């Protein structure tokens, strides 16, 4: 078996893991990050895109609110290119208690969260599609954040400082010597080869899958409640400001404008298995009704895609002795699980709970805890260091991509018209990532994520992947079929209206014109 040696092994390539790898690399640790699939393939790539101001938590979860207030400001500084400064509104809908608005204002004051109550007329002028029956409105500094871009920026930053990012490497076992974890045995999911990774320290940043990893060290009783939430991306920006219902956190109460779409979320249902989170028609129906409450006519708008993510809500049987009944009542803050203190197992820490907005703080807390255990004093610099592609300090603007494209419109083929992806960038990404998987390309470039959901660009991308020699015929066919299947998963529960029409056109292309089903191999 081949083997690698490193200072720190990070398990999990979501926002937390990428943040940890970046933090470790900045502090001079040699680092290896492994993920069983692609970066941001789990919870991070399946969230609504909200960069919390903290407003959502000021009444119910003040610690989480304080963290959001601080981290929101830091992320705007260090990864500006991943963030759009949309601003946010909390609105009291006709179905909500106006008195909650007072508790909300009080909470914001306590948390030092800049907010202002504005008149209903002014709110409607700002967002004309809002329910005209709203009774109060408050402004907050919410934003939207591109999770893929964030995770990739952090991973690239870590790589540039020597970290090795091993995607599609699944941990099959932790290596335990005496009372310490000394690395892991990982399997390359693409080749089946196993690899022995020896590490001075192992950091478990696998989110909703953390309990599965912990068990490999023979540790019992650490639970993660996978809290399933569904989200629907609507074509167009129905709003240009994040809109929150001003009420205790509930289902379907956030509408986030991100890139060219708006995402409504979410639900919170306890799931038995983080890998089994199907979306049901009833959940979609309920979410559309929730949307209708915020933006009348929501049901007539075009839905693009629906998906579910799993929150890593932490539960320690040793600490609480019982399971929480409602996942909504589990704190959204994070905690470092110290396995020395708890289980007598050293050189191994687990990050539990948390949310994307606080990814930097989570990484810092985890790496700080590691440094304490190692007895090393290496200060954290992630509050000021900027990962690659965030150098100009400018927050992302919606027109940026179009502006870049227009500069080269006559010189380059446009492969994905919906997401404005040119051929050069596509080929570069394919080469850089060394991938044969169209779904990996999708996550890196947003290829196939626009209104036609890959109807046109996926044939082109398959041809190009084949043409640059990345795929032979059978692989191209398998990749194309795999993409169509994966895409279908996010489409069929919301197929009505114009998106059903689009899906039928896509069927026409893939089945009627190309007959993908019967391509050999």
């Amino acid at each position: 078996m081949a083997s690698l040696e490193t200072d720190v092994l990070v398990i999990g390539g979501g926002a937390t893991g990428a943040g940890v790898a970046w933090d470790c690399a900045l502090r001079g640790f040699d680092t290896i990050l492994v993920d069983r699939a692609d970066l941001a393939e789990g919870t991070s790539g399946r969230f609504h895109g909200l960069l919390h101001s903290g407003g959502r938590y000021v009444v119910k979860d003040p610690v989480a609110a304080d963290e959001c207030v601080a981290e929101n400001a830091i992320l705007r500084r260090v990864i500006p290119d991943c963030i759009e400064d949309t601003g946010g509104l909390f609105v009291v809908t006709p179905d909500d208690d106006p008195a909650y608005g007072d508790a909300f204002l009080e909470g914001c004051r306590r948390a030092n969260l800049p907010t202002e109550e504005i008149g209903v007329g002014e709110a409607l002028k700002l967002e004309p599609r809002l329910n005209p029956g709203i009774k109060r409105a408050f402004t907050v500094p919410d934003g939207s954040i591109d999770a893929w871009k964030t995770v990739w920026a952090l991973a690239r930053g870590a790589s540039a400082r020597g970290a090795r990012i091993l995607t599609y490497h699944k941990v099959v076992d932790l290596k335990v010597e005496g009372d310490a974890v000394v690395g892991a045995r990982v399997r390359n999911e693409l080749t089946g080869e196993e690899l022995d990774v020896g590490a001075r320290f192992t950091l478990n940043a696998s989110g909703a899958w953390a309990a599965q990893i912990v068990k490999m060290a023979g540790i019992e009783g650490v639970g993660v409640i996978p809290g399933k939430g569904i989200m629907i991306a609507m074509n167009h920006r129905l709003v240009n400001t994040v809109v929150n219902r001003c009420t205790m956190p509930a289902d379907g109460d956030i509408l986030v404008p991100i890139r060219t779409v708006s995402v409504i979320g979410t639900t919170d249902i306890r799931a038995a298995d983080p890998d089994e989170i199907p979306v049901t028609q009833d959940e979609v129906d309920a979410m559309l009704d929730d949307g209708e409450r915020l933006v009348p006519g929501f049901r007539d708008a075009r839905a693009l895609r629906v998906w579910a993510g799993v929150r890593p809500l932490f539960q320690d049987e040793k600490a609480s002795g019982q399971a929480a009944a409602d996942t909504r009542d589990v704190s959204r803050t994070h905690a470092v699980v110290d396995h020395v203190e708890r289980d007598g197992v050293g050189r191994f820490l687990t990050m539990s709970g948390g949310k994307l907005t606080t990814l930097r703080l989570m990484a810092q807390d985890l790496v700080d805890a590691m440094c304490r255990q190692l007895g090393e004093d290496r200060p954290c610099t992630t509050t000021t260091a900027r990962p690659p592609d965030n150098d100009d300090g400018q927050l992302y603007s919606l027109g940026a991509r179009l502006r870049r494209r227009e500069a080269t419109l006559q010189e380059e083929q446009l492969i994905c018209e919906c997401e404005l992806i040119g051929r050069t960038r596509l080929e570069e990404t394919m080469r850089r990532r060394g991938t044969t998987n169209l779904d990996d390309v999708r996550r890196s470039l947003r290829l196939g994520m626009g209104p036609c959901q890959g109807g046109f660009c996926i044939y082109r991308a398959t041809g190009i992947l084949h043409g640059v020699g990345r795929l032979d015929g059978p692989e191209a066919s398998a990749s194309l079929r795999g993409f169509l299947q994966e895409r279908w998963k996010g489409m069929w529960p919301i197929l009505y209206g114009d998106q059903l029409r689009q899906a039928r056109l896509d069927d026409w292309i893939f089945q009627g014109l190309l007959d993908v089903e019967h391509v050999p191999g």
Partner: protein
Amino acid sequence: MSHHDVIVVGTGLAGLTAAARLAEGGARVLVLAKGVGATHLSPCTIDVLGYAPDRVSDPGAALAGLGEDHPYAAVGRDGVAAAIGWFTDAMRDRYPYTGGLDRNLLLPTAVGALKPTAVVPETMAAGDGSDPVLVVGFTALKDFHAPLLADNLSRAGIAARAVELGLVPEGRVDVNSLGFARAFDDPAFRAEVAAQLVARLGADERVAFPAVLGIADAPAAWGTLRERLARPVFEVPTLPPSVPGMRVFAVLRERLRRAGVRVILNAVVGGAERAGGRVSAVRARVGLREVTYGCDWVVLASGGFASGGLELDSRWKARERALGLPVTGVPTDERFRADYFAEQPMARAGVAVDRDLRPEGHENVLVAGATLAGAQPWREKSGDGISLATGHRAAELILGAAVPSEPARAA
């Protein structure tokens, strides 16, 4: 209010066929359509029946195995044959078709699958065969990938290789199929293509091109290349826009013009005046005006869910948009299955008709094409076959309506 013998709604293959056949038979026809139809998306090979569910080699015989609810049941094999005969004749001079109901041809698609189809443009027919193939692509045409096609075709047992030419029509790097088709109308461009290929041909090779060999006069462009290359030459359909479909549209549109048929585009039909079981007039929004057109008959060929003839709302209620006809076949529980390539329960939803293509409660409305319930056109490869056959059948029924229709006629 103007009055017309027949109002045809839609300008896809079904609507164009019905209107042209009716006009030939002496009817005064008005065509109303929201825009140009599905021809611009469709490769316009007449796929009659390709899979049922195994690959069909004799489509004429396989028609009998389809259920009573399938649109072909109202047409019958003879009716399908008559429609093909009419279409082949209509296309003969400007864009000839070949093939028939006895045998499916197997034509390579742009990913290299071999798709069964019954009646095809002559420009595509040499795709059926086992001789080696040289696939010609253009780097400036992103909607056709020659190496991918060649690679997959080889694995299907047909030796194939690819060359890609760097020619850029109008000096642009991003040209769609229509742009290339216009370039191929220029004799100088096709001479240049032929010159670049001639030395690279193998002995027994057929030569495949994307289906962009001319738009104004495709037979001439195709003929020149056959002559210059001295090999069988065939076209393979690209992603939309479909140049072959535009050729068909142009031929049938010209036929309508010559027959004096008025075609009003940007006319969205949204209601009817009814008396008993008869529609006496249809209402349409033409631009910003509401206009009512009187009629004796209506042929509804406005397309299915893909074309907007049918729609499903977020509460899963389906609607036929022009006349509000009842839509059947929308399941109340499982509408779609999680497996993309499985048969989808929603697939056969549409407007159900009797043996004379009439929806329930309507004496003088006939439905044709993708609006009809009962088929799964893309999965079974039957879309253009159904549109042609039912469009033609609707016209025949109306023209023969002096004699009341009997079930025996439809069999």
